[in-house]
């Protein structure tokens, strides 16, 4: 996946990011080139956007490699470009279905790839923030868990409103079509962050399973987060130390 040693061979989360970026550059690139070469007329926009996605992943790979040796400038721009691409193409694919007779890589916020395309740039941006030594300890893992627990509840309310309009008011499926993929993305993100938090904070198995189960019924992630906060299960001795432990 990563063609050559990452940075100065330093161990860290960027190795996994680089592997994923290389894989997605390869997958999206091969897919779009085959599609454009063999049946470009079927969905020219979707296939071209897949090629754009592939180029973005290749540039993202370069950006993360540079950031891993201390040159974060390119990454801080490139990763936001990628976020914008996923959001714009993802939203366009659910709002203007006619533009996408065939799916593109970022269709439905990357639903065809298990929402990894939506989570990848966010994970990379979080990593990038942790790289900056001048930053005060801000977005550590616990904060990320709180944010994603709240986002999970927000996406649930969007989905419920969409379901209300679809089934009760019978006003069409658009709400569900938009919030479905968003909720899916946040769900996968919550599960990943919950697993990491479990690992770092040493939750017991019942607490960890409750955290994961809370992702399934609506709004329960927020209740879990409030309970965990109250009972001291989100306490870290020193968040900075915790993060350093993760990075080591």
């Amino acid at each position, binding site marked *: 996946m*990563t063609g050559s040693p990452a940075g100065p061979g330093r161990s860290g989360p960027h*190795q996994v990011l680089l*592997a994923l970026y290389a894989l997605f550059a390869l997958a999206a690139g091969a897919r779009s080139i085959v599609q454009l070469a063999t049946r470009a007329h079927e969905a020219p926009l979707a296939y071209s956007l897949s090629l754009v996605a592939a180029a973005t992943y290749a540039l993202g790979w370069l950006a993360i490699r540079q950031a891993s040796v201390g040159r974060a400038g390119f990454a801080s721009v490139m990763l936001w470009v990628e976020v914008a691409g996923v959001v714009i193409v993802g939203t366009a694919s659910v709002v203007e279905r006619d533009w996408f007779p065939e799916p593109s890589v970022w269709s439905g916020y990357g639903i065809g790839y298990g929402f990894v395309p939506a989570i990848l740039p966010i994970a990379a941006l979080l990593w990038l923030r942790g790289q900056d030594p001048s930053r005060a300890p801000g977005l550590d893992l616990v904060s990320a868990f709180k944010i994603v627990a709240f986002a999970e509840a927000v996406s649930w309310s969007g989905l419920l409103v969409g379901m209300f309009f679809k089934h009760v008011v019978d006003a069409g499926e658009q709400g569900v079509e938009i919030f479905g993929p968003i909720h899916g993305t946040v769900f996968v993100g919550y599960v990943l962050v919950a697993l990491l938090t479990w690992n770092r904070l040493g939750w017991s198995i019942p607490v960890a399973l409750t955290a994961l189960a809370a992702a399934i019924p609506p709004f329960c992630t927020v209740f879990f987060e409030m309970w965990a906060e109250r009972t001291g299960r989100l306490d870290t001795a020193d968040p900075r130390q915790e993060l350093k432990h993760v990075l080591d």
Partner: protein
Amino acid sequence: MPGPLDQISIIAIGYAVIVALACVYSALRWRARPPWLDSLAWMLEVLVVIRALAGLAVLAGGSRPEEFSTHLGYLIASVCIVPIALGSVPDDRGPWSVGVIGVAAVAVLVISVRMMTTL
């Protein structure tokens, strides 16, 4: 048509799941990358190579899958992923390098499934 090719694919898929789960286990322990994980990954590579050779034999025998270029692309990618992943973290035994192998195992898993569906 469930032939020997599909059987090898199913074994490779099942084995890739085992490698991915081993990576999850190893990552949760958060120690240095254990040597047995490399061995597991190389065994997955052997399976995938056998699968690719059998697949090439079928293609050489005149069988043309509907999505030929896609299928061939998966065939080539399937054998490249594990060596590149292991080659990118040769001397690095840090726990994060387990993630790289995990990504490779999941990629091989997805590719093996797609190879069955595009045949």
